[in-house]
C-alpha cells in the first residue's frame, strides 16, 4: 500500500514548499523524486558523451545506458521489443510524429476519427492535413462524460483510415475502454492510436493487452524530467512509415540527392537524443514500479472517490463538476466550477444588456488565484481541450489532479478553500 506522507519524503521540492502545500496540478506536470534527479546528475557527472558514434569507452557506456532506458520503459508498457519505443520530447511530439508520418499516406476523402475529449495535441496535428482534403471527425460524449459509443459507431466507415483517441481525459478524468475501442477500430480496418499522456503515469497500461498500434506519453507527467516522451508503435507499421525529422542518427547513408534511412527506432530519432532525459524517465519508471501501478491506481481511485463524496455532501453554493461519477472509470481528475459562465457569443450578446449576466458564478481564474493564496495549486482554463470545454458549455473550468504524494487531507483542504472562495465572491 501507498502512504502519501512517506512518498513525499522522496521529493525534494516538498521540503522547499513546506508542510501543507497541496500541489494538485499533476495532470499538467509532476514532481521528481530524488532517484530521478540523481540518475540525471549521475549521467552528466559520470557518463556524459554522445551516443552511437563514439569509438571509445565513455560513449559506449552512454549508448548502453540509453538502450537500457529504452528497454526498461518499453517493458513498463508491455512491449516485448525495445526497438518499438521511440524517444521524443513529449506526448505532443509523439502524436505529431505519428500524424505527420501516417498523414503522408492519406488521400483526399480519407477520414481520421478522434473524439471531442481530445487534448489539442491529438486534434491540431490532424488538422494540419485538412488542406489536403483529409476529413476530421469527432466522437461525441454522453451526458455523464463517457465516450458515446453510438456516436463512435456512427462516425466509423470505410474511409476511416485512422482512429486516434485519448485513454484518460485530462479534463473529465474519464478512463476509456482502450481495449474495446482498439477492437472496434481494427474490425473497421483502421489504425488505432492511443494518447496515454494521462493513463501511463497513473495505471497499468499494456500495449499488447490493449492491442493499440501506437501509444503516446510524456515523461514529465510520470515523475520523469521534462523534454522526454515516448511513442510506442507496432514494428510492422513503423518499418513502413516515412521519417518525421531529418538529420543525423536517422540515416544510414547520405548522398547528394538521396539518403538511406536507419532502422527503427533510430529512423525516427533525428539528432542527438535526450539521453539524460531517457535515463531519468527510466529511473521514474523504476520508482513507480517500486509501488506497483495497481497501487498507484488504487491510491488515486481512493482520492477521487473521496472527492466525489465530499462534493455530494458539500453545501457550496452552485458547485458543479464534470465527468463520470463512478470511480472505477475515473482517474484522479476533478474539474469543477462555481456557477456556470458560458463562452461569449459576440453576435448574440444583447445590445441592451448592461451586465455580463454571470450571476453569482466565480470565474475559474479567480478560483485558482484564491486557492493559490491558501497554498493549493490547481489549474484553471480550458486545459488544452478547448473543443471539450465549449462542448460542456463553459468558458473554462478549474481542475484538481492527483498523484501518489497527494493525501485525503489535500482533498479536504481543497473543499475548504473552494467554500471560502464561494463565500468571498457571494458576499
Amino acid at each position: 500500500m501507498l502512504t502519501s506522507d512517506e512518498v513525499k519524503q522522496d521529493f525534494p521540492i516538498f521540503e522547499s514548499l513546506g508542510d501543507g502545500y497541496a500541489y494538485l496540478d499533476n495532470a499538467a506536470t509532476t514532481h521528481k523524486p530524488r532517484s530521478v534527479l540523481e540518475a540525471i546528475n549521475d549521467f552528466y557527472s559520470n557518463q556524459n558523451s554522445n551516443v552511437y558514434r563514439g569509438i571509445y569507452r565513455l560513449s559506449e557506456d552512454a549508448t548502453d545506458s540509453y538502450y537500457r532506458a529504452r528497454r526498461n520503459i518499453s517493458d513498463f508498457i508491455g512491449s516485448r521489443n525495445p526497438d518499438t519505443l521511440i524517444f521524443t520530447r513529449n506526448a505532443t511530439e509523439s502524436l505529431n510524429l505519428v500524424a505527420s508520418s501516417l498523414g503522408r499516406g492519406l488521400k483526399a476523402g480519407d477520414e481520421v476519427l478522434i473524439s471531442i475529449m481530445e487534448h489539442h495535441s491529438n486534434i491540431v496535428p490532424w488538422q494540419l492535413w485538412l488542406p489536403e482534403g483529409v476529413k476530421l471527425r469527432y466522437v461525441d460524449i454522453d451526458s455523464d462524460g463517457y465516450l458515446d459509443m453510438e456516436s463512435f459507431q456512427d462516425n466509423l466507415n470505410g474511409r476511416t483510415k485512422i482512429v486516434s483517441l485519448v485513454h484518460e481525459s485530462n479534463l473529465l478524468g474519464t478512463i476509456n475502454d482502450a481495449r474495446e475501442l482498439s477492437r472496434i477500430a481494427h474490425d473497421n480496418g483502421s489504425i488505432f492510436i492511443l494518447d496515454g499522456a494521462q493513463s501511463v503515469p497513473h495505471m497499468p497500461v499494456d500495449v499488447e493487452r490493449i492491442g493499440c498500434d501506437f501509444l503516446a506519453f510524456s515523461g514529465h507527467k510520470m515523475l520523469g524530467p521534462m523534454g522526454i516522451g515516448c511513442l510506442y508503435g507496432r514494428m510492422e507499421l513503423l518499418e513502413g512509415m516515412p521519417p518525421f525529422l531529418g538529420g543525423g542518427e536517422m540515416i544510414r547513408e547520405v548522398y547528394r540527392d538521396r539518403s538511406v534511412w536507419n532502422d527503427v527506432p533510430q529512423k525516427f530519432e533525428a539528432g542527438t537524443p535526450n539521453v539524460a532525459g531517457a535515463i531519468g524517465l527510466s529511473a521514474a519508471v523504476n520508482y513507480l514500479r517500486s509501488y506497483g501501478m495497481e497501487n498507484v491506481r488504487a491510491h488515486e481511485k481512493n482520492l477521487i472517490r473521496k472527492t466525489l463524496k465530499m462534493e455530494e455532501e458539500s453545501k457550496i453554493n452552485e458547485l458543479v463538476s464534470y465527468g463520470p461519477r463512478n470511480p472505477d472509470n475515473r482517474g484522479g481528475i476533478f474539474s469543477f466550477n462555481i456557477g456556470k459562465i458560458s463562452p461569449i457569443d459576440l453576435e448574440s450578446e444583447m445590445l441592451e444588456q448592461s451586465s455580463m449576466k454571470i450571476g453569482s458564478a466565480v470565474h475559474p481564474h479567480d478560483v485558482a488565484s484564491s486557492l493559490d493564496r491558501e497554498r493549493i495549486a490547481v489549474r484553471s482554463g480550458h486545459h488544452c481541450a478547448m473543443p471539450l470545454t465549449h462542448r460542456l458549455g463553459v468558458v473554462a473550468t478549474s481542475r484538481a489532479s492527483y498523484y501518489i504524494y497527494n493525501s485525503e487531507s489535500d482533498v479536504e483542504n481543497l473543499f475548504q478553500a473552494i467554500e471560502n472562495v464561494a463565500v468571498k465572491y457571494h458576499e
Partner: protein
Amino acid sequence: MSDEEINMEILLDHYRSPRNYGKIDNPSVQLVEYNPVCGDAVQFSLKIDNGILTDVKFIGRGCSVSQGAASILTEKVKGKSTEEVMNIGAEEILKNIGLNLGPSREKCALLSLNALQKSVKKYRDGKNE
C-alpha cells in the same frame, strides 16, 4: 482594511456591475481581443470625434481581473484623445488596479488596454492618419 483589500473590493465592484457595458450603435471602430491562454475576451466599441474618444463601451467574458480592469479602463479613457490613449503604459494600468497580481494575472489586467490600443490603431489605419 488594507489598501490591497480596498483595491480588491473596487475591482470586484467593477466586475459585478461593469461600467459602460454594451455596444455602441454605428461605432467608429470595433474590435475583439482574446487572451489565447485562458479564453478571456473583450470587445471594445469606440466613438471617435476629431481625435477624441467621446464614447467607449465594452462587452466581455472573463475573470474579475480582466473584466474589472476593462470597466475601470472605460471610465479612465472617456474624453481622452487617441494620442493620450496610445500613450497609456502597462505600468499605469497595473498601478491603477493596485493589486499584487503576479505575471500570469497581469496579462488578464492588460487584455483590455491591448484591445483598446489595437482598436485605436485599427481606426487610425482605416483613416490612413
